[in-house]
């Protein structure tokens, strides 16, 4: 109870920190722009901005890695502050390259848009690394507790994580993919689940990056699921796409629809995760922005109260979205590796089959054999 109270206190304190972070990025004479502030906090950045007091911005500089026509250029994001502020953005001269940085977008002066490939360790990438390190620490520890000769009851961290692993196995993988084939996909599903979950949770921390609310991240994750589907799809799956069970004259319509269908599934996955997490962040940030829009401390208790409530809700959403993403991935994979039920059905009624194919007994036999081996 005591520790819960302490965590709650820290949480509320940090919320205050977040508040101050939102409050002061703009000089005081400038009008507070809630939309801009919110989008600034939702989007990626080359530095990890923690908080600002007055005009002093406290942020962690991150490495900028640029691939330019003049070779690879690596420097810290704090160098941006040494550049000249111009109309177009910040002008930064480094060796042969002159960069123009506008809203965290880096361009090369006198070149086309695509001339710079930005592989920087941005705030999101850094946050991703952090989450991965956390995953390794947590699961390295948990895995160790299973490497004993005699099976033991899960204790400590393993006791916390094991029910979730069992949940992924028994509620997601087994029902969606089937008892015979789920084991092959368990590592991928578990990784996706915990990766999304931990990043959802990290995203809720004040000052943290909004990783799972980033379309690039969700699209890449969905891309992995798509690859899983494409590489594991069996004859039956491809048969449904290129030879759907419809009259032949419908093929010109059906085949394109089925091909589009391959891509709509991961697309929906990507958009769902992105939209859910981003929406949650926008709601929290909007509630907190109310204080600065009304310029009144009186609004603060209500705003903070609501934001706290939404934050609690987001904790739930963090789990639910990880669950939904994993479940749908499992369902799509399950569809791709599913066996043909019709043939199985026929295999159970050999007498019926023989009666139907009495005139072609050899063919019936082959079909039956296929059904049995399948």
């Amino acid at each position, binding site marked *: 109870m005591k520790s819960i109270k302490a965590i709650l206190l820290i949480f509320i304190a940090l919320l205050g920190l977040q508040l101050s972070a939102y409050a002061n990025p703009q000089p005081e004479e400038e009008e507070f722009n809630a939309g801009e502030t919110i989008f600034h906090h939702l989007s990626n950045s080359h530095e990890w901005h923690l908080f600002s007091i007055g005009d002093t911005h406290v942020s962690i500089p991150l490495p900028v890695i640029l691939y330019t026509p003049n070779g690879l250029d690596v420097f810290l994001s704090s160098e941006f502050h040494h550049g000249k502020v111009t109309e177009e953005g910040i002008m930064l001269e480094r060796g042969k390259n002159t960069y123009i940085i506008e809203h965290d977008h880096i361009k090369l002066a006198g070149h086309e848009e695509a001339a710079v490939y930005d*592989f920087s360790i*941005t705030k999101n*990438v850094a946050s991703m690394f952090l989450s991965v390190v956390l*995953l390794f620490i947590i699961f390295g520890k948990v895995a160790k507790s*299973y490497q004993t000769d005699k*099976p033991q009851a899960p204790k400590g961290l393993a006791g916390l994580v094991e029910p979730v*692993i069992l949940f992924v196995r028994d509620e997601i993988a087994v029902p969606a993919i089937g008892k015979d084939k789920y084991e092959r996909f368990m590592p991928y599903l578990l990784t996706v689940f915990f990766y999304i979950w931990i990043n959802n949770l990290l995203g809720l921390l004040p000052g943290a990056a909004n990783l799972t609310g980033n379309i690039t991240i969700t699209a890449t994750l969905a891309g992995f699921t798509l690859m899983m589907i494409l590489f594991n799809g069996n004859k039956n799956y491809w048969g449904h796409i290129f030879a759907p069970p419809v009259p032949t004259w419908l093929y010109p319509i059906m085949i394109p629809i089925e091909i589009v269908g391959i891509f709509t599934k991961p697309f929906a996955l990507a958009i769902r995760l992105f939209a859910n997490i981003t929406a949650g962040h926008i709601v929290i940030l909007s509630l907190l922005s109310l204080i600065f829009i009304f310029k009144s401390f009186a609004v603060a208790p209500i705003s903070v109260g609501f934001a706290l409530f939404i934050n609690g809700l987001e904790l739930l959403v963090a789990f639910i979205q990880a669950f939904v993403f994993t479940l749908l991935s499992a369902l799509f994979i399950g569809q791709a590796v599913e066996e043909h039920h019709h043939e199985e059905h026929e295999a159970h009624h050999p007498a019926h089959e023989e009666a139907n194919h009495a005139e072609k007994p050899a063919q019936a036999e082959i079909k039956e054999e296929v059904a049995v081996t399948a």
Partner: protein
Amino acid sequence: MQLLTPELGLFFWQLVTFLLVVFLLTKYAWKPILQGIKKREEEITHALAAAEKAREEMQRISAENEKLLQEARIEKDQILKKAQETARQLVDEAKENAKKEANRMIEDARRIIESEKNAALSEIKAQIATLSVQVAERILKNQLSEEAKQKAYIEELLKDIKLN
């Protein structure tokens, strides 16, 4: 819309990182964890089955014990009954024998007494006869010692004859 613009760098790092995470976690976490869980589940199933089996065995043994006990009880009752019967029979037999023996002894005693009595009686008779002859002899000797007495007796005898 900055929010919806994919970023090349992020995509690249995500691709590399995620593949690495999948690979490393699969090798060092998921496989041992899932194997551990499976092993434990098997062990639990096994243990439960063993417990069930032991319970059944226990039940079977206790039923057998109960049966054995029941049988022993029945046998005990039978043995007791038999023993009692045998004892009674023995007692009866002994009683019978004793009675017979007693009767026989009484009979013997009676017979001996009878024969002893007869022997005694015949001896007494013989004695009496001897005694009577002796008495008669003495009396005769005494009475017929004198002439006068002899004459008187003859007369008397003659008188009797006359009368007849």
